[in-house]
């Protein structure tokens, strides 16, 4: 398996380098390229941006250097406004996630992803229901405990009126249990607060809870997807990502996947867009990317062009309906 991947990667690298030689006139950035992160240091987006920075530099995929710039202010709105105001500047590329749909709805940020230039969708991120290792052992027990609790049953998450919060609301609707949602500044904080027993559960992405899971401090109850995570290598002493049941298997029919996608500012030329589509396609073939996908239990995916647009429109509609149903759309 890994051999064939490496062979494909090598082949891709050879194929990829050929057109550069033949079409020397194709556009290429001459100034440092900024990967704009709409979250704080150490979060999932930041880690991904740094992986890309390393993958691009180590494999010499581009001549210009890559810098990561953190624009996590105002829950990531800072990055969105920054991208919007950088029209025509092809040296900035945003690493986006579901906030591009949700923030404009919940906080009335004057932003629309259609103002930016889509490059590619590079991964899908999972959500897992976690509880403290000393807590309930199955989803059923967990829900029963939530229903029986006399004091507020606390669910930690990142930010308010965002993906974690939406998932919590849908769990409430599905089960009739009541949760008190505690919005933290980052997934890392939500993870430690769960370990310290200050919350009963969280719905972190796999990457955010990976280390505390490996240390046996939290338990993975179920994954919010139609199918199990594909990675079968043991991560903890006894479990692989694949051993986590889906929430539906456990009788909790809630699903949500989050995109990880690259965007350029608006009004860039088609050549510039094409350069980045090609660049990130190459990134997804590097060993660094593949390692990262497996380690952080992300779903590898690569969408570009009309395929990506169709996906974005559908995903936008879905997020909008979830946000509306959860009552998070600002009037």
């Amino acid at each position, binding site marked *: 398996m890994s051999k064939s991947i490496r062979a494909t990667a090598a082949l891709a690298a050879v194929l990829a380098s050929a057109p550069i030689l033949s079409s020397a006139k194709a556009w290429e950035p001459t100034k440092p390229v900024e990967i704009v992160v709409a979250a*704080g*240091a*150490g979060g999932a987006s*930041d*880690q991904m941006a*740094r*992986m890309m*920075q*390393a993958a691009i*530099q*180590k494999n010499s995929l581009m001549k210009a*250097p*890559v810098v*990561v*710039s*953190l*624009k996590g*202010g*105002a*829950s990531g*709105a*800072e990055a969105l*406004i920054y991208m919007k*105001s950088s029209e025509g500047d092809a040296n900035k590329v945003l690493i986006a996630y579901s906030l591009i749909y949700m923030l404009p709805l*919940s*906080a*009335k*940020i*004057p932003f629309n992803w259609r103002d930016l230039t889509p490059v590619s969708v590079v991964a899908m991120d999972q959500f897992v229901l976690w509880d403290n290792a000393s807590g309930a052992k199955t989803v059923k027990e967990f829900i029963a405990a939530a229903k029986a609790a006399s*004091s*507020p049953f*606390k669910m930690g998450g990142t*930010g*308010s*009126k*965002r993906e974690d*919060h939406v998932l919590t609301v849908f769990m409430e609707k599905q089960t009739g249990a009541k949760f*008190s*949602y*505690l*919005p*933290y*500044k980052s997934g*890392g*904080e939500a*993870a*430690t*607060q769960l*370990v*310290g027993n*200050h*919350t009963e559960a969280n719905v972190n992405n796999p990457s955010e809870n*990976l*280390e*505390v899971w*490996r*240390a046996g*401090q939290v338990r993975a109850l179920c994954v919010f997807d139609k199918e199990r995570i594909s990675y079968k290598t043991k991560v903890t002493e006894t479990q692989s990502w694949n051993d986590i049941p889906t929430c539906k298997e456990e009788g909790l029919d809630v699903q949500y996947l989050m995109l990880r996608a690259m965007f350029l500012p608006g009004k860039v030329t088609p050549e510039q867009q094409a350069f980045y589509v090609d660049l990130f396609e190459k990134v997804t073939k590097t060993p660094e990317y593949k390692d990262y996908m497996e380690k952080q239990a992300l779903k590898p995916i690569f969408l570009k062009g009309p395929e990506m647009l169709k996906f974005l429109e559908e995903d936008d509609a879905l997020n909008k309906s979830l946000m509306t149903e959860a009552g*998070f759309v*600002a009037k």
Partner: protein
Amino acid sequence: MEAFGLLMHGFAVLMTWKIISLMVVGLVLGIFVGVLPGLGGPNGVAILLPLTFTMDPTSAIVMLSCIYWGALFGGAITSILFNIPGEAWSVATTFDGYPMAQQGKAAEALTAAFTSSFIGSLVAVMLITFLAPIISSFALKFGPPEFFAVYLLTFCSFVGLGREAKHKTVISMALGLLIAGIGMDTVSGNLRMTFGSDNLLRGINFLVAVIGLFGISEILLTMEERLALRGHAAKISLRTVLKVWMDLPKYWVTLLRSSVIGCWLGITPGGAIAASFMGYNLAKRFSKDSESFGKGRIEGVFAPETAAHASGTAALLPMLALGIPGSGTAAILLGGLMVWGLNPGPLLFVEHKDFVWGLIASMYLGNVVGLVIVLTTVPIFASILRVPFAAVAPMIVVSCAIGAYAIQNAMFDIWLMLGFGVVGYVFKKIGIPLAPFTLALVLGSRAEDAFRLAMIGSGGSVGVFWSNGLVGTITTLAITLLFWPVIDKVFSGVGRMLKPAAQTS
């Protein structure tokens, strides 16, 4: 004793020429970065991070952490010489450091600052070495109520122990809290006080405000008073250094108290900033001669520097052991660790012993080498004072502007910084202290979030702040400190006897 053996192993990992020279390079870069206002540790580390991608993780972290130590040392230089804190945690160092420089005791002040930085870091590193496993579980005890209690304690110690008139401290703090509220509110997810402006969306950056409040306002005052930066040729000789060192034992209580405060606030992410202020205030409170603070007292340099550095160092512990960065720089180091394929967390200490103990050993070595470097370069920095004000002032203004701009690459921040400069000038004129304002600006939104999360968690009952021994003790201590002047008066006789006991808390 197992820790000791592992530490020796760590030293063995480091003892190569390559690593030692990387260390020196890192320290020198760090000092420069620390001297430039606004650039500071986090930005310096962020800019230099990609350089390390090609190194092996141990060399890389040694170099980056040395940049961090260098920045910690360097931040003190501008605070003392120009009254411009290069780093947020150097604000409290300006209170007595700058008056000392004005009195021609710049060399003493710098030596004191560097030495106490060294002591603070050393205490924290020893703590990391021997208490790592215990402390990482202690940090887990901190939920929203505990965090709020710590912030409350910091605020209350300011009001209760401050030298200034209480109402002025409260006014200053309230204005700071108001400004801290600008931007996105994490708990509700709504925007506040942004008035539709994209620039206000991300809130008022604390460093931009500090550079203006302290740096620009100082230039304005100096211009008005036609004061040159009257520095004397600070001849730092071995004798000055030794003289300061000879005096050290006299201040052992201050040093110890500040180290404890620093370690504690570094581990619980209260941060170096809160630590430096708290260290200063407590030193002043428990001094027999608290009137002389703020007028160039060497103890006023020892106290905040020791606390800031103990906390800056201790902040690395929760980052390694739990993956929660205790400071901005620690957060960037965290990003670096992940790039090198190391995941900070409880297992790091088990799975990557070489790396962890190499890093801890580099903290010892880095501090010793750093102290030597800064002490030998003090004459160079102190000689800046001999340059005429007319030449230095524009340079300071420019470096302030660059610093403010570099934080978020925003032109708006330069205007904001100039605005804060005027505010700082007015505050100084009407005698409103700046420190409570800056403190509220830094901790305001965190304190607010912690309070509201605690309220959500408890279903709205204030009793949660006394719900267990830890949080109850901190909250009670906070309220005691708030009303300390009253309590002090009532039990003035008894109070004097209780002071030594209170110091250890």
